């Protein structure tokens, strides 16, 4: 595990990381000319009113994993069977994804 508990990971930071990633993905997929939606905790990632289709969601998850690794030194696999079998999908909104990431980090910390 590369996560070090010396640096506390705050949920707000994770939200920002996901938001930045989502902006990047939206920009890459739609081109720079499009008006980007305002993103926040409530922004839906799948289902009705979602800002991304399934390919976009996959791109977002890859991007978030990459940034967690590059910027925070945390290596997580977000899209796996575990995530898919959660009662409520961790991918339903930016906030839910941030919660899921914080849970995974806490778990890693506990095992570290």
């Amino acid at each position, binding site marked *: 595990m590369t996560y070090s508990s010396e640096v506390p990971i705050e949920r707000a930071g994770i939200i920002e990381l996901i938001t930045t990633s989502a902006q990047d993905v939206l920009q890459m*997929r739609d081109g720079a000319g499009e008006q980007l939606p305002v993103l926040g905790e409530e922004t839906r990632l799948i289902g009705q009113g979602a800002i991304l289709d399934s390919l976009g*969601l*996959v791109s977002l998850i890859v991007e978030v994993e990459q940034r967690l690794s590059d910027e925070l030194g945390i290596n997580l696999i977000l899209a*796996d069977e575990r995530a898919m079998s959660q009662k409520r999908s961790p991918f339903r909104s930016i906030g839910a994804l941030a919660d899921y990431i914080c849970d995974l980090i806490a778990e890693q910390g506990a095992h570290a």
Partner: protein
Amino acid sequence: MSIAWLLERMAGWQEQPAMVWRDQPTTYGDLLLRVEEWKGELDRYGMKEGQVVAIDGDYSPNSVAVLLALIDRGAIVVPLTQAAAAHREEFLEIAQVEEVIALDENDQHVINRRPVVADHPFIQQLRQLGDPGLVLFSSGSTGKSKAALHNFARLLEKFKVPRNKMVTLTFLLLDHIGGLNTLFYTLSNGGTVVSVRSRDPDVVCRAIERHRVELLPTSPTFLNLLLISEAYKRHDLSSLKRITYGTEVMPESTLLRIHEVFPDVQLQQTYGLSELGILRSKSRDNRSLWVKIGGEGFQIKVVDGILWVKAESAMLGYLNAPSPFDEEGWMNTGDMVEVDGEYVRILGRQSEIINVGGQKVYPAEVESVLLQMENVRDAVVLGEKNPITGNIVTARVNLKEPEDPRAFKQRMHAFCRERLAAYKIPVKVEILTQEQYNARYKRMRRADALESRE
């Protein structure tokens, strides 16, 4: 014996160069003398008909002479080269090799007897016929090498038909069906095989210039390296008449650029398999990936988009795997193709197709686009499992100059968006510093390819 016809033919070209090794020519007369010397050496050593003998070495006067002497003796030949060094012991084991003739840098040989008695039923079958054999290893998509045993006499049958006499560079190695094809094609038509010490573009181009090479049989990966290195600008390659490419799918962008650089050179796709030999082929034109394949002794059919081949000269079977042939002798090649009348277009290995949410992505198509991007030196596209879409498209890219990964990814998206459907655009991009092709200049697309590099 089975190659008496070839040796007779070669005797008619005594003074002409059969090969060039370390820039020195060896005439057909010299080569035949060496074959005679080897026959004596094999006698002295007590090597008998039907023995399984490995030749460990690259192209050289001695490796070719001993190969011919062994075929003449009815031996079962197992060519090994540096490219397979990592699998050497495994290959010796699988092929039940009894004798190893190793040739060093200076073409000096050592013979080692292994405490093995080859008794595989296919080997015994060949011995009963008194025919020579050939064992070739194919890498197989699962990574486990399969040993194909051929009746060498039958494999050589097709070379009896006279064809063009050409000066040919031996790009593919002696343990590869394409490399052997080049050798026997050249020798049976009075041509010259030019061997090179390395497959570096500058080394290859220098040899083409110096020995006025006419035919360059190679791989798309090498042609891409040739373009990027611009080695063709530093040498006079005006002797080239034909470039053939095979062993992997040609990215269209590479083909078009090669045609631009060599407008007067015929560009010809080849198709063959370790199990079946090399088929006759004819590209629709120099800029086309559509190719007619088959020829005498071969039948082809396409079932559910997959190419099947039936060959008269097919191997007896694998030494270490079940037969890949159906009751009628057809073999599923595992290559996905499109069909247009008599022509096929090879799309890629069925095992390498990436299924993204039910839609098929052929790595070669995406690679072809990535290779057109500025600052991209090489690109390999492969699938990675993903629970949302089944798989995602991953690109492993080598850059010419360092570039910020995030900036590259943005640029790649913008470039691909105009050229590929959204689901084909790589979701994950890895920028690599190590090369992604193997010793045979073939791109490696398996997820674990980089760890298992030969």
